[in-house]
Structures are given as structure tokens and as C-alpha cells.
């Protein structure tokens, strides 16, 4: 199913934070469920064509989670974190750490906000705060999927993007 809702990434240069913003054509309660129930998360959080599985999932204040993601070559990676706040249907605050990094201690603080919009729609804003600019930039670079990047576009298109990317 194609969607006209665009995903916006706001990552101002030199900052330790980034925002992922997207609207959905569904009421907030429903969107919140898809973002906070294990059954649904397992269907969408992982990379394309690869599912994840939760070995621990406690969506409540003070709870924690850990999930495993497989890769095409049979390798497995773990991710874990602690839930700071789980307020249905408006806000989830948790930490996030990728276990595959060469050293421990690179933790991200993630706040997901769910805003109701007119017409039974919802805006989700995920705000991630990293411990350093390098951590953030590393995360963005690791998010590259197969490196299929369009060749250079026209300058005015780029500038539009640049403005969106750099000025929240």
C-alpha cells in the first residue's frame, strides 16, 4: 500500500540530536498500539525482509526490553534499553543501545510523541538524543540500506532538502 505521508528527518549539522517525523492515516490510539505492542513491533522495527524478536518486553515505567535482529548472512545483533515512561496514547520515553558496537556505553535517549490530527490522523515525532555528534552521525550512516542513492539532483531540489534538514 503506497502512502503519501512523507518521512522527514531533521538532523542539524553539529548537533547531538535528530528527529524522525511522520504522519499516519489512523487515529492516535491505533498508531500508539502499533508502536507499543510486541506483536506489531516485531513486524516493522527490523530492517527490510528481516524480522526481529523480543526476548524481553516490558512497556512500563522502569521496565526494560531486548530484541534480536537477524541479518541475511545469519548473523544476529541485539538491542536493548530501559523504559522511562510509557503514557498511553501520547508518549514513550526509553533508552536504546546497539550491542554490536565495538564498545559499550553509546546510549541513545528516545522520546516518541503521538499527536492527534484532524480527520482521525496522527503525527509521530521521534526525538533521539545521542551522547556525541559522532554517535549520531554514526547512527545515520549505519542506517544506509544497500547504498542505493540517487545520483546528484538539481541544486534547487537539494537546497530545499538542505533547508528542511538543517532548519527545524
Amino acid at each position, binding site marked *: *500500500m503506497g*502512502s503519501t*505521508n*512523507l*518521512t*522527514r*528527518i531533521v*538532523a542539524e*549539522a*553539529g548537533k547531538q540530536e535528530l528527529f*524522525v517525523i*511522520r504522519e*499516519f*492515516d*489512523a487515529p492516535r490510539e*491505533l*498508531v500508539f*498500539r*502499533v*508502536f507499543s505492542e510486541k506483536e*506489531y513491533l516485531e*513486524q*516493522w*522495527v527490523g*530492517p*527490510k525482509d528481516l524480522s526481529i524478536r523480543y526476548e524481553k518486553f516490558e512497556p512500563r515505567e522502569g521496565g526494560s526490553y531486548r530484541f534480536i535482529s537477524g541479518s541475511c548472512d545469519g548473523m544476529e545483533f541485539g538491542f536493548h534499553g530501559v523504559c522511562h515512561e510509557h503514557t498511553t496514547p501520547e508518549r514513550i520515553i526509553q533508552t536504546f543501545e546497539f550491542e554490536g558496537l565495538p564498545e559499550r556505553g553509546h546510549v541513545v535517549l528516545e522520546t516518541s510523541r503521538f499527536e492527534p490530527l484532524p480527520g482521525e490522523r496522527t503525527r509521530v515525532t521521534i526525538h533521539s538524543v545521542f551522547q556525541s555528534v559522532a554517535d549520531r*552521525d554514526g547512527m*545515520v*550512516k549505519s*542506517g*544506509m*540500506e544497500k*547504498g*542505493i*542513492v*540517487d545520483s*546528484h*539532483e538539481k*541544486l*534547487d531540489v*537539494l*537546497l530545499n*532538502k*538542505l*533547508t528542511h*534538514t*538543517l*532548519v527545524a
Partner: protein
Amino acid sequence: MESRRDIFQAIADPSRREIVRLIAFQPMNLNAIAENFDMSRQAVSLHIKIMSECGLITIKQQGRERFCSIEPKKLAEIADWIEPYRRTWEGRFGRVDDILHKLKTKKNG
């Protein structure tokens, strides 16, 4: 030892991003750029020097004037940098759309 300069350092400063926007569509000389800022001409000049070292700006001498223009390919590096990450999220959210669609159909059906 000289510190490594790259495109992300070139746009790490808000004034430098403002300079990018100013000269994106037409090259400008240093004085004309400096007129748009409260800071000194020397400060603007330093920003331009850094951006030139990062490869984002090209400076061309024309008579007594030095004209600064943007290197579009360098600028493209920034958009290219974010784009794959954005697509990863777009893929995830596309799956969320599918799940939401199923849930809505179930509820109404």
C-alpha cells in the same frame, strides 16, 4: 597537524549555513556577503576560508574582487548522507501503514 575538514564541518555553524543560502544561486563577493551579517568582515572571511578548505565554496579572483560560489557536488553529499537513513525509516513506516490498514479493516469489518 591540520585538522580534517569535511562538508559537515563546513555547515556545522549557523552563520556558515546562512552563507550557503545566500550564495547558493548567485556567486557573491566577500563584501556583499558580509553586508548580510552583524559580525565583522574578518569573521565572515574566516567562515568562508573554512568552507573553502572543506571544498564547499570556491573562491575566484575577478579583477580586484573575490567571488565566492557553491560547489553543488559537495552540497549533494549532505542530502545523500541523510537520504538512505530516511529511506530506512520510510520502509519501516510503510510497514506500519500496512498494519494500521489491517487493524482498521478488522475494526470496521
